[in-house]
């Protein structure tokens, strides 16, 4: 998989992975946000489950 947006270092500016593929960048951001939200959801489920188990 070629993730580099540059061919060489001469005159390079933005060089982070997928910088030339906005759709991939957008997807990475969405997945990151979704994982944060999902973790909070799982956190709440764990709390509720632990409280029920405790009685």
């Amino acid at each position, binding site marked *: 998989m070629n993730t580099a947006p540059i061919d060489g270092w001469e005159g*390079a*500016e*933005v*060089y*982070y992975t997928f*910088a030339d593929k*906005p759709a991939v*960048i*957008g997807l990475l*951001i969405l997945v*990151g*946000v979704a994982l*944060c939200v999902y973790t*909070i*959801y799982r*956190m*709440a489920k*764990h*709390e509720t489950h*632990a*409280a029920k*188990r*405790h*009685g």
Partner: protein
Amino acid sequence: MNETTPDIEAKIAALEAALGTVNTMNSEIFYWWCTALMLAIHAGFLAYEMGASRSKNALASGIKNLLAFAFIVPTFYYVGWWIYLAFPAGLTVSEASSAGLPWSANMGPNLTDQASGIFYAAFTLFAATTASIMSGSVIERIRMSGFTILAVCLGSVVWILGASWGWHPSGWLTTTWGLHDVGAAGCVHTVAGFFTLGVLINLGPRMGRYNADGSLNEIPGHNMPMSLIGLMLIVMGFFGFLGGCIIYTADGWLTIYNTPVTLSAFAFNTLMGVAGGMIGAYLMTRDPFWMMSGALVGVISSAPALDVYYPGLAFLISFLGGMIAPKVNDYLVVKLKIDDAVGAVAVHGVTGVYGLIMAGIFASGYANIEGPEINLMGQIMSAAVFVVLGFVPGFGLSYLLKMFGLLRVGQGVELAGLDRVEIPAKAYPEAAVPAFDLSPVSPAE
């Protein structure tokens, strides 16, 4: 030596280019280490809050701090930095804000931008500090999930909107009213303190904190020495925090408002502020917990005008702040029945307002680069904005969480302790090992 004019010009150009590179790298290095030093604030809050909890809640309190930090790093990347760049004019979006969008060329490795990443990092640590201010007040009864939502809202949205308004060279509080708050007492401490007050009203006191007749029971933490070390770490980290409040340029240091300053000015007044607050709080309480909280009060009291105060004046302002904060906390806890477990509303919220007003009185007349000179009314009105900006979302969001049952743990969990019910680890496992049972036994046994 027969150098021609073009040779000399070429050498000068090369030297200027090299100097420019060194300056840029120095700037990066400076904020890198400020950011690293600010991590001590989080180590401090971690120790401070775990120590202030009863042993049955020690780990839950610590996990809460770790979660706040971990969630704020990505969420501040996704929205926080953009908010700072977007809203200096109020609620209209600035054109410059596109550089803060998470998909912009500036928000990742870029050989032509050596500033965005390092400023994002420093501001992220400010954000995590802001959320940590709330976390100590709500220990021993808040739900982890509810707390994380509140921390993200405070750290990645609310305070940074306040920073854009009042801690930015073109923030409208400065350009319109002349606000001066170089050490971020308003956008960080006042906003976080009053956000916390809004949350505490909905969260309610810990079980057993108040008797039926309204009288108060003390709930001491399980490890005061740990809390004291934590508070000292926070004070240490504030040198990174306040260093990060200064702009490094090729021509010297500037405040966030682009007025000239020196690190020496900050050094004088930060140290005098810390000492003033500690002694003032000691005089009022004799309590080591309040002495070290007084050190924070001292920093915050002098923070708005660290750049211009005479150090002897900063000492007195912070001394008075250190005397006032414990009394404000007593009023909140005893009279208003707000169970603030660590006094954050008084230490951060009320002291932030106090510091802003003191700057209006004692730094009045100093010129701003943009907007009117520093003045008392501008400081008071700006403080009111920070109070409202903190309180309204804190109260509103915690009210919603309460409606959905996401704010507070159940009574059974609170009685048993959050560690026992929710955490798959033990803070002090030796306490349950018979060999460590030091209760007296008779020889016959």
